């Protein structure tokens, strides 16, 4: 079994996206976690990635203008009334 000392921090940083997506082979995935257990630097890097994802999730979407909604509902009526709806 390869030990945590075989994974460097630089390597972990390159793997972090795949780690978060559960895309790493099991052995690699566990290597990442065993490295995290003993590495403050990588713990913080992972925490920063989690924080980044939270910020991205919180980025507000723009609301569509009411005019756009109006245009779309009108288009829907036109589409429906043209007999396209079944």
């Amino acid at each position, binding site marked *: 079994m390869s030990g945590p000392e075989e994974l460097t*921090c630089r390597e972990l940083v390159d793997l972090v996206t795949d780690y978060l997506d559960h895309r790493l082979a099991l052995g690699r995935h566990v290597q990442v976690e065993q490295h995290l257990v003993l590495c*403050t630097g990588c713990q*913080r890097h992972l925490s920063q*990635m989690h924080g*980044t994802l939270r910020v991205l999730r919180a980025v507000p979407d*723009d609301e569509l203008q009411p005019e*756009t909604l109006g245009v779309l509902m009108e288009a829907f009526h036109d589409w429906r009334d043209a007999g396209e709806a079944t």
Partner: protein
Amino acid sequence: MDIATPSTPAAGRAEDRRLVEALRRGDEAAFASLIRAYGPTMLRVARGYVATRAVAEEVVQETWLGVLRGIDRFEGRSSLKTWVFRILVNRARTRGASEHRSMPFSSLVEAADEDGRVDPAAFIDASAGATWGGWWAAYPKSWDTVPEERLLGREMLAVASEAIEALPERQREVLVLRDVAGLSPQEVCTALGVTDGNQRVLLHRARGKVRRVLEAQLGETEAA
């Protein structure tokens, strides 16, 4: 009628079927609920391809028209959301290309683009004795002490938005669909027509860039 986030893939497919059938019947409320659910995110995605918000709204409108015109052909092989965003991405790319918004050398820039990576100088040089080569030379800062109101506050969200806008197009596409719109890796590959391998690399670089920008922002104002 509101669109709830489905709890399982099977529930998602059932919900999709219900909505598609309602649209085909001409159910106005179903269409309105779809626009409410996806519209704001669609606008954000479109905004990444075209010069103005007004044009982005047009792209979104055109997308919904395309959805209506194609709804009879939707077979449910992908999720409804994926299908809608695929149409959106195609329209937005077309519109963006006709605006010449994409920098002509963007693909070359991307190939050489390294600034999403953690600065190599942050790691101990492997040549300086083998013991700790590749390990952190100094710890990154902890974000755990940043209060939630600040991390997710207006300042940081604005900085994140700018960072997204500044990404190379292919990285921005993947990041917005994955991390802002919340599509799965497979959905993003389908919507963008990219391979899984590409999607992973683009996402990694894009997230790395945004992280660096946020880190810099937190660092600058930390003394306050």
